[in-house]
């Protein structure tokens, strides 16, 4: 009986998610150039994987993806936590306003948000360039999207803007879940602001933070749209994430075999991360069902 209820979900997932997985897996063992027909393509075994893992470009993309994930997620959680605490402390009328405000950046599609920031970063007329140049910090407007180091961090900033607010909302929920009595008890016990935060709020918020960490970093690792839309992976390949790199193999170079093995590697890494996370925080989670 239960199986029938589950069937639609399983079917949908099987066709559009697991079938591509299997197909990609198969593709990755063949050399396919401009063709999707693996039945007639030469079988190359693990050669694709070797190519991928030893390539300089892969290492570059991997490092950038790693750096991006670590820095973005750390900033997003930190900022999110700050915004959550701030929102929690204001009067309830303002809190409703703030919650609505926080939802906005998240509601915007990644591509669109990339466009927003592309304009802000515009080399000739972008607001940021103008502000920095006018305040005398530099000789000319900084090239946010074409300078290698700046480009990396510009992307990070755009991502942080989009996601720290949703982190804030999630952590706000976590804060609200802490029993008010416990807060009151801490206050009466003589715990001032920072002490209370460190010893009571933060530990009780930890489960929420860990869950946010998990979901957000898995997402960040697979980031595609920001790099694609803001810099196209450039300059050169400095801001290529693993995903944009694989995309290029598929659609720019039409090397489907290689691209597939690339995609498999990404999947393997993400899966490994997910497993590592979940097993580590298992004891901190208590979830019904």
């Amino acid at each position, binding site marked *: 009986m*239960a199986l029938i*209820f589950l069937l639609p*979900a399983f079917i949908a997932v099987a066709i559009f998610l697991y079938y591509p997985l299997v197909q990609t897996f198969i593709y990755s063992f063949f050399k396919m150039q401009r063709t999707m027909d693996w039945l007639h393509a030469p079988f190359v075994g693990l050669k694709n994987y070797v190519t991928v893992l030893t390539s300089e470009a892969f290492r570059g993309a991997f490092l950038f993806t790693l750096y991006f994930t670590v820095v973005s997620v750390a900033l997003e959680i930190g900022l999110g936590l700050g915004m959550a605490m*701030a929102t929690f402390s204001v009067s309830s009328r303002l809190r409703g306003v703030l919650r609505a405000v*926080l939802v906005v950046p998240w509601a915007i599609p990644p591509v669109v948000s990339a466009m927003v920031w592309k304009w802000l970063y515009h080399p000739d*007329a972008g607001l940021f360039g103008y502000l920095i140049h006018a305040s005398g910090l530099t000789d000319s407007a900084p090239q946010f999207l074409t300078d290698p180091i700046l480009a990396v961090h510009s992307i990070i900033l755009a991502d942080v803007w989009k996601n720290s607010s949703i982190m804030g909302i999630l952590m706000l929920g976590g804060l609200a879940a802490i029993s008010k009595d416990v807060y009151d008890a801490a206050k009466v016990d003589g715990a001032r602001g920072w002490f209370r935060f460190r010893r009571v709020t933060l530990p009780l918020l930890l489960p929420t933070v860990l869950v946010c960490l998990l979901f957000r970093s898995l997402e960040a690792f697979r980031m*595609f749209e920001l790099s694609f839309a803001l810099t196209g992976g450039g300059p050169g390949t400095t801001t290529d994430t693993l995903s944009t790199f694989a995309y290029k193999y598929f659609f720019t170079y039409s090397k489907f075999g290689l*691209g597939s093995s690339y995609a498999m590697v990404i999947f393997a890494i993400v899966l490994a991360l997910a497993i590592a996370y979940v097993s580590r925080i298992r004891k901190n989670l208590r979830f019904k069902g």
Partner: protein
Amino acid sequence: MKSKHRYRYRRRANQVLDVLITLLIAGFCLGPLYWILATSFKPMGTEYLIPPEGWPSKPTLEAYRIILGIPSEASQEGVSGEGVFGSATEVPQAPSLHFLLPIRNSLIVSSTVAVCSLFICSLAAYTIARLRFRWKIQSLLLLQVAGLLPAVMVIAPTFVLMQKFHLLRTLPAMILPNIAYNVPLGTWLLAAYFSELPWELEDAAKVDGYKPFQIFRKVILPLAAPGLFSAGVFAFLGTWGEFILSSVVTMGVSSVQTVPVAILNLSFEFRYQWTWVSAAIILSVGLMVAVALFFQRWVIQGLTAGSVKY
């Protein structure tokens, strides 16, 4: 009486702090969007003025008219600065400038996906959260792992699949896969929500002889309305923002493009017309933000329903 002096202004200071915090956070979240909004109202070319105007001195709906393909009377305003097209009357009637089309497409795709995925996910979530059977955790896991797949892995085979069924360059090519893409998150959210509902009503219905599907329809669904709303909103917003699959499957055909693809194409095709791009952004964002704000209470409720407890 030393205390009274120290604390006299505490309440007032707190109120001031509240307002400051609100302004800061609102500024952070809404600032970039405000900038786009302002840009969208600038006459063509004036967005390149140095120093940039905080708010256009001569605001106009020109950009909106152009991207919506509404013919405009010859504009009297001269354009200062470097506009690519000399005056506003030289409006190219390129198809990509009927921006209502992508909006319509996105609306159709997103709402269809939302409704369908709600149906599928709630059935699955109900099973996992409330029914008794042996492989609950495995089923949930199976559905969640599917959500870890990187987009790049999925699109090529899906493209081939669509090709085989002659669905390329059609809306269903985006609707069907997106339903599947929403299953992991949707079932997770709904399962969490369902598991929090009280058991008594179901037991009473069972005793009264209702079959599982009837119980599901008559008892659970009404109760879970907030959770369903939020899962639906998530599916809607997620699909609206989906880019990779849409761009691959529409293959450049503008009549079936969804909003993200259309905006990106707009920005490449008219890469200097930032007022137009801004207007397009505001149109699409405006709708989504309105949806998000309207449903925000449920959205937040849905997000925190499965919150982990200590």
